[in-house]
């Protein structure tokens, strides 16, 4: 009896809590939209346009372009392919923004109510939101496969089976052979993601996020909803199939096995067609469901593999304790392909578009350059590594991307090292009144580094006396490597002179020819600094023991003093 009373009380209380919300939601939908319009016009319209067409005043220079809400095509959804996003999806995108694009997070600028109001408002731009009576079907995360070495291995094979490499490249740097041909629904150039830089994934880089992109696709982009090329085969069978497929000659038994697997697949695709057409008997439905389960399993493995390609988080910029420190070696400096380079940690220099002087680059494609360095008593060697999806060695007309230019990099130093933090440096963009000293490398001459002196971005001259800069370089799988070696000190007054222990300003300019980079249109960094890390001094073995002995002596002395005073 008592318990029943209690339950009743809870129910009534619960109703009290729930009712106002139910009521509020229904009655204020129109109000929400009106409020949402105010927020939208103030915060969103300059990119997405007053009428939601993605044509705001700022849109012109943005790539990816701001979403056109009137088409109802949304890239980042938790729903299945071809479906509209859920309200929560829209809310999440507004809240978190889209990394790697100009859509920022709005969590700090708008409160949750305002963000929900904007969701209500942007849905009014597309009729489809009203018409759809059933809720969009969300992608289930059931059967998630934990992140493990084994799963990554399976995912790696699936990466090949699913032909991900065609766009994303063999190692995933977005450098696949189809990469240059890709455009989005709106005919804008769109590059496949570099899977080694997951901080730029528009829809987040959790394994769940990646999985949803596979199963739901990225609408409007070239990223398709997944289709299993080995539909109906288990993971082991699919592995076996590829194995046999790659074999030059098969034995009779193998031949038979191969044909069986092919038949199984053909059968599976037939059933898939039947199911998609709304037909198929019980048994076929069951088979379809089993095969889909395998397909989801495969997608999880693949998501784990893709996750494994990037570092855990974006590396920290080479500032302060992360500064580039050239390490001392006694012997010859290692050449470019020496394994000893792998023992050094990379210093990470993030880059941005040059938007200071016309022509400008508003949509950079190079994220960063990583640098390592060794030096010995007479020379210093640097290894510069950066990702670029295409290898461009000349100015030419490309049928897919239009005019392309040569890829290049320039490493910038001051001619004279500033003595202290307050003494002037040259202007960070290729100098001004004070000159900078540059090493310029261009993809057309892979074994040559040119020394330049510049007093402004449009005022660079090749040095008359070209010093001896040994150069090696390579382009492979979407990545450039450039190795240069120079003497620490030279006779040329226009060169930078290096000494261990002195912090030297360093800055970068890079050009991705396929992105139209040429001349002032480029990606740049501001000033950083690097040092030839001094060999640790032997003092560190001498002074500490002396100090320790001294303090022991002091203790003994103090004791003696106290004892003497006691006896007195």
């Amino acid at each position, binding site marked *: 009896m008592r318990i029943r009373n209690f339950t009743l009380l809870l129910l009534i209380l619960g109703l009290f809590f729930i009712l106002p919300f139910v009521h509020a939601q229904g009655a204020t939908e129109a109000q929400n939209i009106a409020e949402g319009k105010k927020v939208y016009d103030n*915060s969103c319209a*300059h*990119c997405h346009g007053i009428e939601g067409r993605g044509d*705001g*005043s*700022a849109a*012109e*220079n943005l790539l990816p372009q701001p979403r056109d809400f009137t088409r109802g095509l949304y890239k980042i959804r938790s729903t299945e392919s071809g479906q509209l996003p859920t309200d929560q999806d829209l809310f999440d995108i507004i809240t978190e923004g889209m990394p790697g*694009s*100009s859509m*920022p997070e709005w969590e*700090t*600028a708008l409160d949750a109510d305002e963000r929900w109001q904007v969701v209500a408002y942007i849905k009014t731009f597309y009729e489809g939101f009203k018409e759809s009576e059933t809720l969009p079907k969300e992608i289930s995360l059931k059967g998630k496969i934990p992140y493990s070495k084994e799963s990554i291995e399976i995912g790696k094979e699936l990466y090949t089976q699913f032909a991900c490499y065609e766009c994303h490249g063999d190692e995933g740097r977005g450098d696949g052979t189809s990469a240059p041909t890709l455009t989005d629904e709106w005919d804008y150039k769109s590059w496949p993601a570099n899977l080694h830089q997951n901080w730029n994934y528009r829809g987040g880089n959790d394994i769940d996020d990646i999985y949803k992109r596979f199963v739901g696709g990225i609408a409007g982009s070239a990223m398709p909803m997944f289709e299993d090329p080995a539909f109906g085969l288990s993971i082991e069978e699919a592995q076996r199939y590829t194995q046999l497929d790659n074999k030059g000659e098969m034995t009779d038994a193998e031949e038979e096995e191969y044909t069986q697997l092919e038949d199984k697949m053909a059968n599976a695709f037939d059933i898939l067609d039947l199911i998609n057409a709304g037909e198929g008997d019980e048994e076929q439905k069951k088979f379809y469901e089993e095969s889909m389960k395998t397909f989801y399993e495969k997608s999880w493995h693949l998501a784990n593999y893709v996750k494994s390609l990037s570092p855990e988080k974006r590396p920290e*910029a080479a*500032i*302060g*304790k992360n*500064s580039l*420190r050239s390490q001392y070696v006694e012997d010859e400096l290692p050449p470019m392909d020496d394994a000893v380079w792998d023992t050094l940690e990379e210093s990470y220099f993030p*880059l941005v*578009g040059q*938007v*200071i*002087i016309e022509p400008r680059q508003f949509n950079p494609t190079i994220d960063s350059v990583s640098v390592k360095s060794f030096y010995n008593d007479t020379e210093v060697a640097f290894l510069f590594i950066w990702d670029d999806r295409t290898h461009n060695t000349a100015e030419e007309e490309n049928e897919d991307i239009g005019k392309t230019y040569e890829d290049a990099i320039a490493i910038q130093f001051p001619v004279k090292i500033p003595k*202290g*933090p307050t003494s*002037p*440096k*040259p*202007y*960070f*963009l290729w100098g*001004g009144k*004070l000159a900078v000293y540059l090493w310029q490398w261009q993809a057309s001459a892979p074994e040559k580094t040119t020394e330049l002196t510049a007093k402004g971005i449009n005022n660079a001259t090749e040095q008359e006396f070209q010093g001896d800069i040994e150069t090696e370089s390579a382009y492979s799988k979407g990545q450039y490597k450039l190795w240069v070696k120079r003497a620490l000190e030279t006779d040329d007054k226009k060169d930078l002179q290096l000494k261990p*222990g002195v*912090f030297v300003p360093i800055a970068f300019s890079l050009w991705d020819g396929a992105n139209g980079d040429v001349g002032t249109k480029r990606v740049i960094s*501001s*000033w*950083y*600094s690097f*040092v030839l*890390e001094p060999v*640790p*001094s032997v003092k*560190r073995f001498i*002074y*500490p*023991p002396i*100090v*320790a*002995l*001294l*303090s*022991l002596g002091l*203790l*003994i002395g*103090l*004791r003696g003093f*106290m*004892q003497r005073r006691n006896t007195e």
Partner: protein
Amino acid sequence: MKKPSLFTICFAIFIVCWVFLRFFVGGVISKPIPNSVIAMYMALVFIAILVHISVEDTRFREFLRPIHETLVDENRQTRRLVFAVLIPLLMLGFTYTNIAKKANPPGDPRTVHPTPPDNLTYKDIVLGTMDEAENPHRHLEKDDPEAYKSHVENGRTVYYQNCFYCHGDHLDGKGHFADALNPLPANFQDPGVLPNFSESFFFWRISKGGPGMPAAGTPWNSAMPIWENYLTQDEIWDVILFLSDYTGYKPRTFGEGH
């Protein structure tokens, strides 16, 4: 329970003060405090303790008693040995880490308030002295709110076509280009930025950009473009109106209310 000795109490106070500064003030309440500042406060605590124990002769002796005992008493042999090993070892470790520490690059000094020139100019046109030059559209706020609004809207367009890459959608200095820049772009949502400077100051900073700053403003580091090359005078004044309209902070004015 035995009452703790004066030495233990003083020692405990010292440690508590340090923990309070290092982890509570510089962690819970605000950002970590530099070691030099902590050292300054700890020196004060140390002097206070010294004063406290040295006002009376007996108190001083009471304070020294445990030290004295540890050093001399026959039945404190073990404790003495532990200290004789521990203290030199600590000193050894301390000196080693100090010597072996890697040098960090010199930090860049940055003046928050670089000194503007005497005259405000746009290209070569002199617009008046820095104190007198005014935003020609500011008076519309009172005189013609509709016209004022259209100037703010124009400023908004200018801002999102040119500035938001670095200064951000929210005007908070966190644009999508910001993380590769050093110094970071100005944050207009910081209450210390707009109210502290006049509109003519902002006009100067926008029109002349990084290269126009005096040497103390480390003009060689700033990525701020010289906007007079791209924007008209009106556009610059309008974008300043937009900054203050969007954030709700008003640039300071000279002479008002005096």
